[in-house]
């Protein structure tokens, strides 16, 4: 088992904490053990259950593990049965996100990356030779994605990768895969790589939310590697959970910052006793801060070494946006998918994409803000 900590040092706010490595990063959970799990042993058992569940998720969605169902799908060609309901659920969900994000979220974005890196304009952008922005627009338009289509059409062999098959059952010429709903099968093309890295952590967070909820926990803060977080209820001593970037983001330097919901904190931070917790903090030192209250957040951008790692599914090239994206909303899964899509998409499409996800907001932060 990973790290576990239980504390009743503050009798008004006992806490339990667990942390362990999973999904190539670190998971942390802090919860207030009320509602029936007040003692050390019960909290420890809960931590073990959480770890076991996340490692189970990891075993399913880790495409780098040859034994995982996803790796087996990536190694298959033609039509195969999808193993397990959870994998099928995320495949379907991924397709819905792809459509709603105008194609900028795609669990198959890594497919055929080799040709893209060699100078191709990507699997969907065509070979127009136009500038990248224009190519993206053209590609987006050409795909005619049914943005208003209901979820998961029941008809067999329909809705393959966003396009309805032609009379002969043909599917989109460049689609790496298609889902066959009636039989829970997937048909993949050569070069298809499915990667759930951009939603698996969000899904795992939702699973942990369910476990904690069933255990009677009402207040908890979950952190998956810094990029995905979920706040259940509120801080034991405050009205919400507050999460700051790993590095402070002074507001006066946020020229590129666009936000709809991000909050500021600083001199008004109060202790339980009502006293200032940061004596001498001036407005100039106010930091960007995100409030979580039964909500989640996700960050997408360059990795922490400053390298691009998110592929723009439309162009097949690395997305190299100037600002990282923070998305907030109820579902950790949607936050993850949406932040990835917005990071890959041109900024002029952000409003159109976010409009397809009611209840979700985003903040664009300058790159240096999140280091």
């Amino acid at each position, binding site marked *: 088992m990973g790290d576990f900590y239980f*504390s009743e040092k503050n009798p008004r706010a006992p806490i339990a904490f667990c942390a362990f490595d999973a999904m190539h990063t670190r998971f942390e959970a802090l919860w207030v053990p009320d509602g029936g799990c007040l003692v050390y042993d019960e909290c420890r058992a809960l931590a073990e259950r959480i770890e076991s569940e996340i490692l189970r998720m990891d075993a399913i969605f880790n495409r780098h593990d040859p034994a995982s169902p996803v790796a087996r799908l990536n190694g298959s060609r033609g039509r195969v049965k999808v193993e397990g309901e959870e994998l099928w659920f995320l495949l379907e969900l991924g397709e819905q996100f792809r459509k709603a994000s105008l194609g900028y979220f795609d669990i198959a974005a890594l497919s055929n990356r080799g040709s893209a890196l060699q100078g191709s304009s990507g699997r969907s952008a065509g070979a127009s030779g136009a500038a990248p922005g224009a190519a993206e627009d053209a590609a987006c338009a050409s795909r005619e994605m049914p943005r208003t289509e209901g979820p998961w059409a029941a008809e067999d062999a329909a809705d393959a990768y966003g396009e309805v098959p032609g009379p002969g059952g043909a599917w989109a010429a460049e689609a790496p895969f298609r889902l066959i709903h009636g039989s829970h099968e997937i048909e993949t093309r050569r070069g298809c790589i499915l990667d759930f890295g951009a939603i698996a952590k969000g899904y795992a967070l939702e699973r942990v939310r369910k476990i904690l909820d069933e255990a009677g926990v009402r207040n908890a803060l979950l952190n998956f590697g810094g990029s995905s977080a979920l706040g259940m209820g509120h801080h034991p*001593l405050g009205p919400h959970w507050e*999460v700051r970037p790993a590095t402070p983001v002074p507001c006066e330097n946020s020229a590129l910052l666009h936000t709809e919901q991000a909050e500021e904190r600083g001199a008004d931070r109060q202790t339980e006793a009502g006293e200032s917790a940061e004596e001498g903090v001036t407005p100039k030192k106010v930091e960007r801060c995100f409030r979580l209250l039964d909500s989640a957040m996700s960050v997408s951008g360059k990795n922490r070494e400053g390298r691009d790692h998110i592929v723009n599914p439309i162009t097949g090239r690395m997305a190299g946006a100037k600002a990282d994206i923070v998305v907030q909303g109820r579902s950790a899964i949607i936050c993850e998918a949406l932040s990835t899509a917005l990071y890959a998409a041109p900024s002029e499409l952000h409003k159109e994409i976010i409009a397809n996800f009611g209840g979700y907001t985003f903040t664009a932060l300058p790159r240096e803000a999140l280091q």
Partner: protein
Amino acid sequence: MNKDNINRRAFLERLGSIGALTAAAGAFPWFQSCTPKATDETKGNVARLGIIGPGSRGLLHIRHLLDIDNAKIVALCDNYPANLEKAAALVPGAKLYTDWRKLLEDKEVDGVIIATPLHLHYEMTIAALEAGKHVFCEKAMAYTQEQCLEMYRKHQQTGKVLIIGQQRMFDPKYLLAMKRIRSGEFGPVVNVRGYWFRNGDWRREVPADHPELERHINWRLYREYSRGLMTELACHQLQNGTWATGMLPEKVIGTGNLVYWKDGREVQDSVCCIYTFPNGVNMTFESVISNKHLGMGESILCKEATIDLPGNRIYREHATYKSGMHHLITDIEKGIFSSTAFAGTSWAADNNRDLHGEVILEDAVPGIEGDGSIELMQTFCNSVISGEQPKDVLEEGYYGSILCLMGDDAILQERTVKMEKDWII
């Protein structure tokens, strides 16, 4: 008192306040000789010192000694008038000599600091010890392994203090790091890397009206006086390896050439040596003086971390995730409602090298004030007063020099040079 003076004094005083150094001093007993406690024990006494060779390194020692309370420079000696004048300006009351033998006859001199060209170390040290003086001799110890051994024997025979100028042994950040390395905290040592890259001709200015002084002033470039990069630069870095592993290398291979500065010099301007310890661990030393991009580096590579000694950093092999959750927990325990800092793009253990590292010694003073030189001088002064040889300090310096000389032998002879039993002390 200028800013530098204040810094040097503050640094010595600070030694007593670094708690972790107490434990390090236990592991490396020579360090106990320069602690404030050791200095207090000499209270009321002064070390009366003569400086032989107040050139660039000698002047640095003088500056340090001027800040040490129990040091008194009573004599200066150099056969190059320009150097002597500079030193005399710093120590107006000191007697001046141009013949080092005369200085050794001076009864008011308790100890001498020898900062002369390499080829003179042996003769001067032997004579000084025989004259009843305590000796601090700059590295490298001597021109040959046999001379080093004879100096060591003479020290044993006379009972006088002999210290070789290996200042890193007194650098607090090195002490703290080495203690942790030797404890096995970072796993076994798997490699030792040392390099020193500069871009310059390594020359000192020769007065235009005295061209005959070329070999005298630029002694480092001529085989008669020096063995080049191996004896002038490698000592410190090779001593790191024996310090970290607790072993002596059993052999060395090496190559060296004159690549760029083909100006009549007789020593190489590019050297590379690989030493091998009995357990197979390699230690490299490389130096080039026609490219400075890589600068100077001294790293101990362990299975679980790389220790950058001059950089004052430890880089873990497996970067640890540091989120603000622990602070959040502490605040809740204290009854504080606070935020937690962790938001960022996904932290990935596989991709994230430990780029920033962990500091070895907080607030370590960069540059010359922090490299152990002043502590080394304090040690010598305390030892001169007490007459007690600091434990292990000579042995470490001795082997550092033996290794340099072995490396140069390997380069010159184009063969594997093995550690000879006769050199083991």
